[in-house]
């Protein structure tokens, strides 16, 4: 069933016209920038971690999706899709859109940290080049985490 949804959603996402901003070629301007990644780690800790997402080296699981296993729950994991998720949020979840809350540069720094700290399973390589991969709404993610 999971695979069926995956195929369905991949197809749907591919058929959705992109908005002007959602340029699939959009790249993280801070990719690989050590200073920006360090800043991004601080920002991740301040905004994203502790209670919801947890850091890559956390002592325990968070209640929200793990962002460091390259298993993307919302979007395809490309730079453009990651930016879209953090900017616009995920409807019907606690994932708010941070556009207007934090400057774009800060969002990119956070994403640079996520990318740099990710440890991917062999079957789920990073998708920095825009390749579509797992967009399946898993059993646990994309759902509001009420407990």
């Amino acid at each position, binding site marked *: 069933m999971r695979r069926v949804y995956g195929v369905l959603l991949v197809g749907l996402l591919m058929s959705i016209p992109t908005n002007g901003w959602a340029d699939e070629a959009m790249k993280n301007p801070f990719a690989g920038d050590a200073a920006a990644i360090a800043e991004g780690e601080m920002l991740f800790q301040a905004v994203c971690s502790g209670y919801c997402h947890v850091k890559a080296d956390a002592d325990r699981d968070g209640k929200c999706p793990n962002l460091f296993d390259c298993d993307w729950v919302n979007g395809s994991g490309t730079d453009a899709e990651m930016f879209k998720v953090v900017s616009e949020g995920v409807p*019907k979840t*606690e994932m708010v859109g941070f556009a207007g809350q934090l400057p774009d540069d800060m969002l990119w720094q956070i994403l640079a940290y996520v990318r740099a700290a990710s440890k991917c399973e062999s079957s789920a390589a990073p998708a920095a080049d825009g390749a579509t991969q797992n967009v399946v709404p898993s059993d646990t993610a994309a*759902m509001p985490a*009420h407990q």
Partner: protein
Amino acid sequence: MHPYWLQGILVGMYCLTLLGVPHYAQAVGGRADTQPEPVKNKRAAQPAATSATPAAASPATNGGLDGYTFHAITQDHLLKGTDDPTYWLMYGGNYAGWRFSPLTDINRDNVKNLKAAWMFQTGIPAQMQASPIVADGIIYLTAAYNHLFALDAVTGALLWRYEHELPDDMRVCCGPSNKGAAIAGDLIFMATLDAHVVALNRRTGAVVWNTEMDRYNDGFSATVAPLVVRDNLIVGIAGGEYGIRGYIDSYDINTGERKWRRYTIPEAGEPGSETWAGDSWKHGGAPTWVTGSYDPDEDLLYWATGNTAPDWNGDVRKGDNLYADSVLALDPDTGEIKWYFQFTPHDIWDYDGNTDLFLVNVERSGQMVKALAQPNRNGYVYVLDRASGKYLHGTQYVDNLNWSKGLDEAGRPIVDPQFVPTAEGKEFICPGSVGGKNGSYTAAYSPLTKLMYVPVVESCWQMKKSTSIFIKGIPFWGGGPGKTQGDDGSSYGHLSAIDPSTGEIKWRYQDEYPMMGGALATAGGLVFSGNLEGLALAFDAATGEPLWQFQTGSAMRAQPITYKAGGRQYVAIPSGGGGLAVTLVGEPPLTSKGSALLVFALPE
């Protein structure tokens, strides 16, 4: 996680939305324009044939519940509390918050014969945290996700049920819990996870009024059992983990109109605002999610407040941070603060100060003093003069406490700087952030033994401090737990009988796991509670001797009550584990989720 059935619906919705099908937000999420009608049991609660007017507008009708005699619940009923043991009308049983019943039919001699009379399954397998209430032979029980059930108190028959329509993106830090309903006149009240308060016709479950307290997506939610004082419905708010500015509200019981709001953090220029650096007061927390107490003689409402925000990093809010982690004495008709006492100034441990507030008489130098006693989350039991707020004494009730070296003469903790959150978070700090004694469950007090019965968590935690940026509607923690003793299995718990006059622990029952279920004391010489392994337990109130147990099948996180119906005493014990706190303090590895009310009686 949602229940599986809801996950299925949501996955379906997700796909339908992408397919362009008009989405189903009103079916399972979003706010419908109209409230859902309660579902009645068709055999027990057919609408009365003689009632042509909507039940909500006609309190004289019985909504089809023939055979029940309804008495409008008045202030006199509330003042009497459990002195009339056919009623259990508020979270604490009486205004003094005792969770005590004068019933003696079930007692220390015969409790071993206690048997299950009936059981009600809510069907909502998530964190059961409520105290049922009882009036005129009907139990009103809330369950997770704001389900409310009316049950026959003798047979357990379901009379009607109400499900509050909730959005999918609620801001609930620690579980979808609810602590119970309140009652006045012909209405049942419930605070909701989307920060509303609803009033239902107690005979039919029909919505009479529905008032929004605040915007849930700004971080507000409500889990508290409201408290009625005259025509005031007193309701607290949750959201201390989201950087809200806390408050206590009063709503007119008949109309739902807000009568007053008392912010628990003063704004700039008000007394106490000097205890907040800059404008940190705007997002400083101090929620109010535990029901308070009321002294009719002093006409004072006592309500305690929770943690500061951000929880584990106080750098941006230098100062004592009034009135977080405090108890406030308020005029119930205006919300005016008469006095306050702060338990944990400048909290950086997440030691919410909102636990039970017992109105008791204590002996001081041969004199009886009208006091307020509270087993606080920070590991100390505090006793205050409840007329003035003056600190009388404080004593440690947990085994493990290192964040403070003691209390000074004014009751202010002497902080040990070694045991504060740091970036590395290496030290294990005791108690951990859950306490001590957590506000999600209740202790009990018996005026016969003059002891408080306090279920206790012993679980030290590493606490990590980090930077924090306030953004409305997302968690504002400034850190979080590192490893806890729950991780290595060294957490444990106990039920401690504490004399509030001295702080002396008279007896203690120790459990392998933290104890996070509520307590009940009776004149039958009994104390009821339960553990995370699912055992409902009864003890001799004088000695602590275990006298009875029953495996309920899920962890005990809720509040037992007792009542008399049809001439027979019943003990009603909700069961159902879950929530963030138990996973952090350490729960039994094979715990099953559940949500049920088990009701016990002696054989007829």
